[in-house]
């Protein structure tokens, strides 16, 4: 018997014995240590007795009760209107009616007075278009003057680099999207994952 054999079995070794996966050291120790042998035997009896305890049966109508309660909870949840939403409803409805009525009146007037409508709206459309075109030109000029524009233009000029950039960008987008979806898909709070 060596010094290792003199130490009593650890909790892990006891468990291993109970699950019939013990090492030769455990078996040899049990042959020489009455304290551990008694403990293991008592533990084995207890574990065997615990394993015979039956499951309890819920009431016969448990399945139906759960389904009814679950569907009721789901429908209640779906029909819940928060006080904030309830307060916002009349305002949203009023705004919708006013906007709809204004548009309808505008169309009706334009139909009745087409010449006036064209005369009044043409300069406005022209000015708006011109302003948009100027804005676009300014934005393009501004972008090409930036220090980061040249490297991007050079890299896009080569198809391989463009492809690599596209793959890299798509990969980053996919990773970000997956991460976001996982964040949004947290399980029930009770689960505590």
């Amino acid at each position, binding site marked *: 018997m060596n010094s290792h054999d003199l130490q009593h079995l650890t*909790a*892990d070794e*006891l*468990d291993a014995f109970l699950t019939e996966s013990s090492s030769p050291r455990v078996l040899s120790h049990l042959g020489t240590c009455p304290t551990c042998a008694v403990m293991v035997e*008592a*533990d084995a009896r*207890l*574990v065997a*007795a*615990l*394993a*015979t*305890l*039956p*499951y*309890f*049966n*819920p*009431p016969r109508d*448990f*399945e139906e*009760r*759960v*389904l009814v*309660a*679950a569907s009721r*909870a*789901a429908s209640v*949840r779906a029909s819940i209107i928060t006080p904030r939403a309830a307060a916002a409803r009349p305002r949203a409805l009023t705004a919708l009616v006013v906007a709809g009525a204004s548009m309808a009146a505008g169309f009706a007037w334009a139909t009745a007075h087409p010449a006036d409508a064209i005369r009044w709206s043409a300069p406005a459309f022209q000015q708006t278009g011109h302003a948009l075109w100027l804005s676009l030109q300014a934005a393009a000029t501004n972008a090409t003057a930036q220090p980061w524009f040249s490297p991007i233009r050079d890299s896009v000029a080569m198809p391989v680099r463009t492809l690599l950039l596209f793959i890299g960008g798509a990969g980053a987008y996919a990773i970000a999207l997956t991460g976001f979806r996982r964040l949004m*898909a*947290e*399980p*029930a709070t*009770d*689960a*505590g*994952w």
Partner: protein
Amino acid sequence: MTHPTPVEWAALSDQDVVRHAARGREAAYRELIRRYQRPVFSLIYRMVRDRELAEDLAQETFIKVLNAIDSYRPEYKFSSWIFKIANNAAIDQLRRRGLDTLSLDGSPHASTPDAIEATTLQIGDSRESQLEEVTSRELGSQIESAIGKLRPEYRSCIILRHIDGRPYEEIAEILGLPLGTVKTYIHRARNELRILLQETRE
């Protein structure tokens, strides 16, 4: 996708059934309830020791699971998820009502004979002979009574490990505890149970 027959439902894994349930199939809900109603109810009943309360908590557990089925992550075992919710419900209830340890003779909140009868832990189902039934029932009662005297954490551990036969890793996941802590709890719980049973016999 075709609708599985009852036999096919039984052959599907939990993950597959959950996938059907997430699409709103009632038959999949029923299958999940059929699979887990007894283990979940038994865990909760052994934890709270009150049949009516256990029925309510088990129902609450299933409602939470079914309503949150979309958020179930298949990389985890479904059993771990549902047992975690059930165990949390039982522990919360024990904390709220201070039902740390209870006798086998019904809930202390039961004031009438009917209520005591309704909340008494019913042990033993069908057995081969009367003598065997009496012996088994007696031992079962002693063990159930001893389990009821354990701390709630030890109780969860011993039920999940030695009555349900769950692996240590899954128990750690269910209880949200480190594996080493779970092993220690189970070891200590067994020691306490041995002592309690010894005291009962003496």
